[in-house]
């Protein structure tokens, strides 16, 4: 028996947004842990309700649209960001039998498509704000995200070639014996880095670049519009972690524990890795970021494709 679609949609929305909200607290506590301090620990047990308090605060803030901004696009931009991230979750297989929107035979491409549309949120926010820093942030975001989308797509092709399908469920099922992180370790590393760049998280958060651009593309945003950017960024972290889990870490597969728990555990560990990266690494210069992408990651992912193809051909019968 499957629940009606509207219920599924509402539940997804609540669960994912709640997750993203709680993630702000998890991140701050973990950053505190790794930097020898506490982080928020006042509201509720261990500061657990800090996220709720922040949510209430941000909801009641003045929702201000600058007079020089392009109103419709300014309002549209955060909505696009939120929407694309939530859409992409639809095809992630949580267990063998269950994903939010069922299995799509072009599931992986669907995720890439929605992520590609997510660029608009940042770019349009930068443009519609009609201010220097926001524009600079938006332009950085456009170049960065389009570039890293290329490597992201190319790095997963090894997985797709081995599986012979774009369906995420087939990809997970193909990892029953060996997780793809071992034969596709090159693709795994490239995908992880591209994923960080795609969610514009530290160390690749140049579109925001607090110390040089104010806050980058969301400089002019306040209130819940800013909150939506914030939440979509955290939902993006969960999305990329879930994708890495699906593509390289065997998805729901694992001994003893129920599949959904395995999926959640792997995704959670990757989210923690994201936060560790933020705690540990400084931000590169913009030209370094681009050089890393086009001069290192692109050749690596092409090499990965060629090697995977060669191995597949050698193994192929006949």
């Amino acid at each position: 028996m499957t629940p009606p679609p509207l219920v599924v949609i509402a539940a997804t929305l609540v669960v994912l947004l709640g997750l993203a909200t709680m993630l702000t607290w998890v991140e701050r506590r973990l950053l505190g842990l790794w930097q020898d301090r506490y982080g928020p620990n006042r509201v509720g047990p261990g500061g657990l309700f800090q996220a709720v308090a922040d949510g209430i605060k941000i909801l009641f803030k003045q929702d201000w649209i600058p007079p020089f901004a392009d109103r419709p696009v300014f309002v549209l931009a955060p909505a696009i960001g939120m929407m694309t991230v939530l859409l992409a979750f639809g095809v992630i297989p949580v267990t063998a039998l269950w994903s939010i929107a069922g299995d799509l035979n072009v599931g992986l491409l669907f995720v890439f498509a929605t992520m590609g549309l997510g660029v608009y949120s940042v770019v349009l926010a930068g443009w519609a704000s009609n201010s220097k820093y926001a524009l600079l942030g938006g332009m950085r975001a456009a170049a960065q995200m389009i570039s890293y989308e290329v490597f992201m797509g190319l790095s997963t092709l090894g997985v797709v070639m081995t599986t012979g399908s774009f369906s995420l469920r087939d990809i997970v099922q193909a990892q029953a014996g060996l997780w793809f992180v071992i034969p596709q370790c090159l693709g795994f590393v490239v995908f992880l880095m591209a994923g960080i760049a795609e969610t514009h998280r530290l160390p690749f958060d140049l579109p925001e670049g607090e110390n040089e651009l104010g806050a980058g593309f969301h400089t002019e945003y306040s209130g819940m519009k800013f909150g939506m950017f914030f939440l979509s960024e955290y939902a993006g972290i969960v999305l990329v972690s879930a994708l890495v889990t699906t593509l390289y870490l065997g998805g729901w597969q694992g001994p003893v524990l129920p599949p959904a728990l395995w999926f959640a555990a792997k995704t959670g560990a990757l989210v923690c890795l994201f936060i560790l990266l933020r705690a540990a690494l400084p931000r590169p210069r913009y030209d370094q970021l681009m050089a890393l992408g086009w001069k290192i990651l692109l050749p690596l992912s092409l090499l990965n494709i060629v090697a995977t193809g060669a191995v597949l051909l050698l193994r192929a019968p006949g």
Partner: protein
Amino acid sequence: MTANLPFLLSALVAVWATFMVVTRAVAIHALLYLVVALLALACVFDVLGAPFAAILEVIVYAGAIMVLFVFVVMMLNLGRPDSLRENTWIAPRIWIGPGLLAALLLAALADALVMAAPGGGRIAVIDTRQVGLALYGPYVLMVELASFLLLAGLVSAFRIGRHIRDEDAP
């Protein structure tokens, strides 16, 4: 007719968005409508049984090429004086040529619509494997030609993007 509700809806959205693209004065708004039109086209593809083509439409056109368009328009910083200047360019005299050509195209399209067999064909879903086999089977020459074109583009982009120092200049 094979047309069903999703098809009609997305087709309507595509037509309406395309109309808005032509009539918008602000370049970014026009581009956004163009993105919507492309997404609607992707929906049409999907309904007609070509999910791979639909997704590629979104990834390549809506997700990459239109972002570059937006990027360029962002950098141009068009303002009110530009749109005023453009208004002077749009004289009826200039419209005659393109109008005639478009009318010719429309006639051809109408002719094709009238002559074509009225629907009824069953929708067969074309999956990725079939697309790949078609590309590297009967259409391999086209793929190679397209790769030539892309290589030429790549080389010229590399040439343009290189820093030319004074002593290198001819």
